[in-house]
């Protein structure tokens, strides 16, 4: 698990490689200032940090069945004595682990 400092180093290298970057201010095209480049590094590092620390949340949201499907699983589990719903939830969690 990378630290924010390590991710900042990665981001710095990526922004350096991407130079020159431009902004459009009221349709005037300008190269980034030093402050803009510093901001871009911060933003990219924070984005990497968010992906690393919180990406599992979205991944789980995408992997879970719909509420209707999960309720259907629970009904048939109750009828048949199966564990399909619990297995489904456990599989999603194990496939998309929360960072330590």
């Amino acid at each position, binding site marked *: 698990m990378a630290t*924010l400092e390590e991710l900042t180093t990665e981001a710095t290298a*990526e922004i350096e490689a991407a130079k020159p*970057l*431009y*902004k*459009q*201010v*009221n*349709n005037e*095209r300008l190269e*980034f200032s030093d402050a*803009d480049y510093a*901001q*871009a590094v*911060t*933003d*990219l*590092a*924070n*984005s990497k*940090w*968010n*992906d690393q*620390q*919180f*990406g599992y949340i*979205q991944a789980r*949201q*995408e992997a879970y*069945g*719909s*509420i*209707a*499907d999960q309720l259907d699983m629970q009904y048939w589990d109750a009828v048949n004595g199966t564990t399909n719903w619990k297995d489904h939830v456990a599989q999603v969690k194990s496939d998309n682990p929360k960072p330590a």
Partner: protein
Amino acid sequence: MANQGLHIIQKTVITSNTAAVTLTGIDDTYDVYHVRIVDAQSTTTEPLRARITKSGVVVDSDNNYDYAWWERLTNRASPGFNSFDNPYGSANGGSWRIQHQNSDTQAGTTIGINLEMDLFNFRNPDANTQVAWRCIFNDESWDGISSTKGAGGFTPASQSVSDGISFFNDSGEFTRGTFILYGYSNTI
């Protein structure tokens, strides 16, 4: 006093790769300000974000930006889900996030981001600066149409007015799109 009705204050058209788009000129001329983004596409699937400007300078202040949004996914069995994000104390809190990660705005796809955003209280130093938006885009993770309706607030660290708004992605550059700032007058 401004003329009645709707007026275009700034219009920016992306003709080559651009990492950030800033629209300024929000002053006391109009009663309401509004931003429209038409078909914005970028080099990455990272989320679109926005920040205010003060005296033309983009403001990135953690603990000042807060937002929440609700996403609708057209190709999901469930109608969507509420998604709230309180950036206080979290990384990249110094902006409003318009969408979640993996929003597909990449060049070459058939649809970019289309967004409407109302701007409130930009000229009131005693109140939070607020935005409310709705946008539609193609979502990479579900490969379908998604939309978000959201709202954001900015709590100024000290009393001051805002005069513009800046859009960017977490990484990458806009490859095309039109960004327009409007002013509305309530004058009859």
